């Protein structure tokens, strides 16, 4: 996985004079900026509206507010009868478990596929790729029934344990692609130094895989955080609600009346994903652009 190639404009000037070229560049920047503003406008509006007094939000949705207030946050924080922070913590617990599970077991599987030999390896690899495309709905009811039999319903186990069984094959594939870019001589050197397969994986290759592991961690976090369906069917006690469920409960209980508070809590809900995005923006986009497209 190489970093994104430099993107400097190297178009030859054969056909265009400097002036035309500059004008074209300016026009493109104006259009791109306008486009970007249109795209992020709803999110900006959400943030501004959440600080606007409730009666002013809809009087003129396009105007900038004359005063910014915290009332919506104060009202929304306990809007479902318990602090919204509880949902944030619950979500972080689920995400933390999912991230650890995916990093550990997907990398193990990827190591096996990329480096070890075992019977039916090609078939297993094809099966693994096929599971990426499998619609989750087909597995939904038997899995639910299984977790119910195990007594795991209304806990986070159905959301976390599958990640420790490497079910997110997409990440296995991503890591296999990455491992294929690491020279085999490194394994060879480790073997000569007395490392068995497990030590080679754990002490040598895993540290070298860190870019792929970070990409996996970020996406696992965001997808688990944003997930609604799994949390909706498996978690039912309000004290265990995640952000997705807490927000939906808020919408159901007060949605028709407390717009301001609902918008404020929506902002709280997107903050963790936003923070991750801002911290890892470069790596996220680079990681995606270089992962396994040539499959």
């Amino acid at each position, binding site marked *: 996985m190489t970093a*994104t*190639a430099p*993107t400097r404009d*190297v*178009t030859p000037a054969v*056909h265009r004079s400097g002036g035309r070229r500059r004008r074209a*560049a300016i026009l*493109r920047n104006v*259009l*791109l*900026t306008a*486009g970007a503003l249109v*795209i992020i*406008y*709803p*999110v900006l*509006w*959400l943030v501004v509206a959440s600080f606007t007094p409730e009666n002013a939000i809809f009087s003129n*949705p*396009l105007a900038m507010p004359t005063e910014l207030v915290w009332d919506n946050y104060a009202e929304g924080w306990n809007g479902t009868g318990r602090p919204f922070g509880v949902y944030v913590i619950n979500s972080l617990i689920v995400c933390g478990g999912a991230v650890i599970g995916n990093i550990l*077991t997907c990398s*193990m*599987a990827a190591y*096996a596929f990329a480096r070890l030999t075992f019977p039916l390896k090609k078939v*297993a690899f094809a099966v*693994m790729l096929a599971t990426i495309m*499998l619609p989750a*709905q*087909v*597995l939904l*009811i*038997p*899995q639910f*029934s*299984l977790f119910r039999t195990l007594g795991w319903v209304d806990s986070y186990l159905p959301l976390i344990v*599958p990640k420790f*069984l*490497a079910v997110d094959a997409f990440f296995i594939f991503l890591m296999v692609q990455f491992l294929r870019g690491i020279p085999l001589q490194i394994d060879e050197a480790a073997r000569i130094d007395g490392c068995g397969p497990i030590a080679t*994986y754990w002490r040598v290759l895993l540290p070298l895989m860190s870019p792929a592991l970070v990409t996996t961690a970020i996406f696992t976090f*965001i997808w688990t955080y*944003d997930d*609604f*369906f799994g949390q*909706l*069917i498996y978690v039912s006690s309000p004290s265990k609600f995640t952000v997705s469920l807490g*927000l*939906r409960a808020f*919408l*159901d209980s007060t949605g028709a009346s407390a717009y301001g508070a609902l918008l404020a809590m*929506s902002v709280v*809900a*997107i903050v963790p*994903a936003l923070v991750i*995005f801002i911290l890892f*923006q470069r790596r996220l*986009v680079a990681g*995606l*652009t270089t992962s396994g*497209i*040539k499959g």
Partner: protein
Amino acid sequence: MLAPWLIGLVVLTAGPMAVSLFLSFTDYDLLSDPEWVGTANYERMLTDPRLATSAVTTLIFVIVSVPLKLAIALAVALAVKRGARAMGAYRAAYYLPSLLGASVAVAILWRFVFGADGIVNALLEPLGIATRSWISDPSTALGTLIALSVWQFGAPMVIFLAGLLQIPEELGEAAALDGAGRVRSFFAVTLPLLTPIVFFNLVLEVINSFQTFTPAFIVSGGTGAPADRTLLYSLYLYIEAFTKFRMGYASAMAWLLLLVIAAITALMFLGARKWVHYGDEETK
């Protein structure tokens, strides 16, 4: 090393697939044992008007949103590919909706954007276009879900970008020296080289679009309202399984979805031979 994956495959994938196929031939409410009913679930699907509605709704959703999303993604990827430092900021801005898009918060935001008092109406009113609640008007409700999906064009855009950056600059230069303009050079050089990425994105987006759930659930309050116009297939499946506890019927629905997705994917792969050019192949 492979043990966790292998256990997961057997216990959480292969096993459930087999069980789900079995359940699709039974009557099962989760509490009592499944009862064999033969092909009754599949026969019922043929005559279930809500299933037909949700299938048509989902097809419209996929057929409209996927090409639109990919076209915008490609156009923007081409625009942000060249040039200077600011491109990173543009990429981030265009990618942002993909990051938040599937969340409940954004689905709630969408209710406000397209609601009776929302931003869209505030923009359209001065233009003299009749305002309405786009979310609760049956003729526009699905459109708002399509808009939400297209809004998230950032993910395929990033993948297009990766593909574009792998195309050697010299090819464009050679085309320019041969007198090809920007447009001609795009269709003659860039697009053919990009077809594997277009195909990859197409398959990915089609499969994902068929399974869209959260926005339909939040926008409609979990019912598919108004008049079942936002009753995407996954939402109907959820309603049958977890509010009506018709798990057998829902399993049959899931298998129909699997077969449809598999058939469409197979067709896409067959069709791909005609238009996807891989590097090692002679180009005309």
